[in-house]
């Protein structure tokens, strides 16, 4: 998957999770930029990504992601 494809998948998963089709994610997006993307929805998002792409993030990494781009980069490296 390219970064762009991963980003599109993230956008779809998050739109579904927050029931908000107006969400547009970029590499620089942070959780604060997306209304209602609280810590609970964040954990759900992470697990939904893991399910869909068949990967597993390190617990410590989950906490240290700052931007959506960070999650994309880690996803790419986990997908190999």
């Amino acid at each position: 998957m390219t970064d762009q494809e991963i980003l599109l998948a993230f956008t779809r998963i998050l739109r579904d999770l927050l029931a908000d089709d107006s969400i547009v994610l970029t590499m620089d997006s942070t959780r604060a930029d997306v209304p209602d993307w609280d810590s609970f929805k964040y954990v759900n998002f992470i697990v939904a990504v893991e399910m869909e792409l068949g990967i597993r993030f390190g617990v410590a990494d989950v906490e240290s992601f700052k931007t959506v781009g960070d999650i994309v980069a880690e996803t790419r490296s986990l997908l190999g």
Partner: protein
Amino acid sequence: MLFNSYPFIFAFLPVTLAGFFLFGIRSRTWALGWLTVASLFFYAWWRPINVLIIAPSVLINYALAQLLRRLSADKKRSGVARAVLVLGIAFNVTFLGYFKYVNFLGTVLSDLTGTNFVLTQVVLPLGISFITFQKIAFLIDVYARRVVSFTFREYCLFVLFFPQLIAGPIVHFREMMPQFHQVSPRFDSENIAVGLTLFLFGLFKKAVLADGIAAHVTPIYESAAVGGDVSLFPSWIAAVGFTLQIYFDFSGYSDMALGLGRLIGVRLPPNFDSPLKASSIIDFWLRWHMTLTRFLTAYLYNPLALWLTRRRLAKGLPVLGGRNFSTGAFFRLLVGPTMFTMFVSGLWHGAGYLFIIWGLLHGVYLSINHAWRLFGPGLWPSKETYQRFMRPIGAVLTFLSVAIAMVLFRSPTAKAAIELLKGILGLNGISLPQQILERLGPLTRLMQPFVSISAAGTTQEFALAIAWVLVLLLIATALPNTLQIMARYGPAIGVQPGPADGATKLARALDWNPTLPWALAMAALGTASIMRLGGKSEFLYWQF
């Protein structure tokens, strides 16, 4: 040594700064070394024996961290690294547990068995709750390889750095050390101006505002514990007044910490962002004691929720994904971890039943807020109408929920808490001073049948208390906060000026700049604060 005391302001701080710049002539290493020594002195001032208590814990944590650093570099030994991490966390929790909870455990055992257990009476070393959390975070960061190298000197400075030593902000090694490496130990007029302004804002919030309203709030709690007046008005003054008091106290302390760091060119993370303007409880916790929320979310809530959610998915059970809802998932994946996290938060704040209930109550608030987020917006025709109507309602509800919970936080006894909560609901009747009741115009006749007359000589006190509450409420909810006023000069990590078009006229007028009017204003605030010092007035959060 208290930040708001003469010895700190007129002796420790000038001497520490002078030493920092003098040693800075020689080198940065010397200047930072001086800071470490000064910090140790700062800690020892209150009770020198504290140093002996805290030193072994500091040294053991250093040894554990070095071990972790070596183990985590080697993938084959990740199992051992994990074991050492667990051991390290257990050590810190036990250490805190012994000093903070042994007395409480005795109470619980006595209550459960109906006997009188007296475990050793332990005196709490200053700031131990904050120091412990910070060290746990450090061990986890080393384990996760977010910190890959550190020397003993760096570690000591990080742990002891006096602006954040006693009551936070709870900082991470990785956000502090790069700054220390770049600190210029030369006199820098911008850092001094911004640092002093932050410090004086904080001092004013603490010494004038928080201590000022405390004089009207404390007596209500004290008298509630011994059967005093807990009718409607005093109960509400107690709840709202204490909420304002603790906000100005702790955010004032945090401003002072930010200012002290800035005097030597170091930025600390923000701890308060006008929490009393929050539009929901979730929003409140993102603005109140932010570094504690950050810690609890990262190291407790996230791992727990992640583990539960993954486990549930592995079993093929529904989770709370997308537009479907399952009650089981809601309780197991959201309410469970939330309640547990807030329970720990309550217990961390204080060893007592009321603190635990306070934490659990906030857990309930948060769960309701999350449930509302799942269902609430669907009840409205559009997102915009929902936002427009619910934001103000949410803000009022949030403030009231926080204030009512604060009664549990502050009450000296469970009985006082119950009486005050009944008073808030009006179950203890309404009483007003005679002179006030007479001057309510048309309301006087309307209220007469329901209102009893409170004890003579309370009129002035009643009016003053109401005035304090109203003025502080206005400051907390209508004025920009310190970080916003100073935003242009980067007062805290990650704080930048907001979008200019969104700022109100008032916010623009209060934008801080190193100008003569601001200098005069800060001198006035500073003078007012200094004149209020002297009495013994500890920060509320220093006892935690």
